[in-house]
């Protein structure tokens, strides 16, 4: 495999392999010289048609730690705003000799189109396509869970039997989709909790349990609670009456936080809207893994870039 488009494509061995390589990449951050010469001479292009803080800077840092040259290309301020299509943009980047393209696009399947086209020969890394997938986010979430559970003895382990509850805007969430597939592969048991209006049609075919009551889910004592942001920019209809009601019914507030087990992880892929889906106390508590997720994101992206680019054939 030369591309990373979806966590659905990863089997257990490949998934654990990526997490293990990321463990070694995490060690680099603790060294005197935080840089490896591994991808010297390779060019990575960040092709971002949608806004991003974490993912773009995380890929940038990961590529630079591996000595690759990185170019940031965002739709704003580029020829895309003059009407250039994906095909011409891709061919332009190919002509510049890109070895990998990290793409984020508002259209589901954009990364796959690029990977299957003959416009560009580079490895394609999906950094979020519409409401479809965001594989490196799911990988860093799994890495964070494994690290909290097993610490330095994480290598080689999966997430067998871990009970993960994903709460919020499942309908628009590529993070939720990527997590569901990856967590199932790793052996975790996933529950999704959301208002019925924010569950996609076809969710009956997902390997998850569906719940509509956050209080019941909290009292069920999950190992991980993952809160998702309400993606207002993708909402073109009224999915719930108002934000106060959403927050009361589906937000992780101080009371629900208190009722969770002391060792329950509270995760959030960011960006957080404090006071809406998660309270400030929950976001800042010791159970919250939000900043660990960001730090681990760099290690995961280093691992993926290494596995896709170091060897000519790719190893994912």
């Amino acid at each position, binding site marked *: 495999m030369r591309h990373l488009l979806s966590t659905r494509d990863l089997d257990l061995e490949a998934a654990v392999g990526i997490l293990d390589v990321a463990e070694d990449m995490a060690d680099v951050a603790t060294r005197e010289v935080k840089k490896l010469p591994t991808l010297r001479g390779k060019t990575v292009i960040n092709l971002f048609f949608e806004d991003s803080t974490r993912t773009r800077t995380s890929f940038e840092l990961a590529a630079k730690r591996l000595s690759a040259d990185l170019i940031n290309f965002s739709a704003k301020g580029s020829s895309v705003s003059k009407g250039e299509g994906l095909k011409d943009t891709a061919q332009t980047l190919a002509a510049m000799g890109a070895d990998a393209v990290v793409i984020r696009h508002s259209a589901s399947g954009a990364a796959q189109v690029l990977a299957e086209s003959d416009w560009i020969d580079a490895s394609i890394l999906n950094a979020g396509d519409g409401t479809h997938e965001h594989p490196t986010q799911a990988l860093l979430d799994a890495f964070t869970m494994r690290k909290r559970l097993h610490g330095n003895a994480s290598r080689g382990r999966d997430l067998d039997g871990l009970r993960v509850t994903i709460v919020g805007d499942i309908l628009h969430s590529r993070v939720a989709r990527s997590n569901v597939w990856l967590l199932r592969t790793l052996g975790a048991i996933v529950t999704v909790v959301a208002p019925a209006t924010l569950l996609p049609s076809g969710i009956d075919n997902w390997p998850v349990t569906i719940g509509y009551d956050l209080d019941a889910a909290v009292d069920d004592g999950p190992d991980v609670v993952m809160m998702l942001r309400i993606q207002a920019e993708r909402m073109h209809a009224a999915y719930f009456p108002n934000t106060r009601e959403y927050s009361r019914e589906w937000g992780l507030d101080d009371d629900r936080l208190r009722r969770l087990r002391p060792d329950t992880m509270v995760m959030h892929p960011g960006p957080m809207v404090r006071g809406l889906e998660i309270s400030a106390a929950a976001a800042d508590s010791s159970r919250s893994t939000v900043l660990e997720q960001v730090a681990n994101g760099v290690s995961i992206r280093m691992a993926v870039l290494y596995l896709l680019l170091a*060897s000519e054939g790719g190893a994912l």
Partner: protein
Amino acid sequence: MTARTLLQPADITRALTRISHEILESQGDDSIAGLVLLGIPTRGVALAKRIGALLDELAPGSAATGSLDVTMYRDDLAGQPTRAPSPTQIPAGGIDGKTVVLVDDVLYSGRTIRAALDALADHGRPRAVRLAVLVDRGHRELPIRADFVGKNLPTSAEEKIRVRLDEVDGAEYVEIIGGAK
């Protein structure tokens, strides 16, 4: 393919004991405290631990041992299937100002050691770097030589040297495979 055993377990132990004595002598008046043994995965790590234990018996104070993964520094990554890196463990005292002895099982082209020297530079600045290997089979492609050699084995490039150690493989021998005769 014919396989011929070249070193038995007793030979391996004898070679490592001699290497330990030589390392100690080369330290001169310096104390063993300034010594760091870094094994190169996989079998170099096991060998470094054994030499560390032998040094413990020979001299007061213990030599620090660890491991140094060189995967990310190799110059042949593009040509072969991607290798999974192994953990690097630098002893708590670091390597600045210490004498580092790199330990590996077989010295061949010298490219692994070149990668190790690059990797080492990213972890600090040792006072000196030495190289100890169980087997030197010749055919160097770089200006690199070992300071401490368990056994020199002249080989042809068609032959393969296979090292097996109890800690890693559950068996202990060195054999030569293939080639003429």
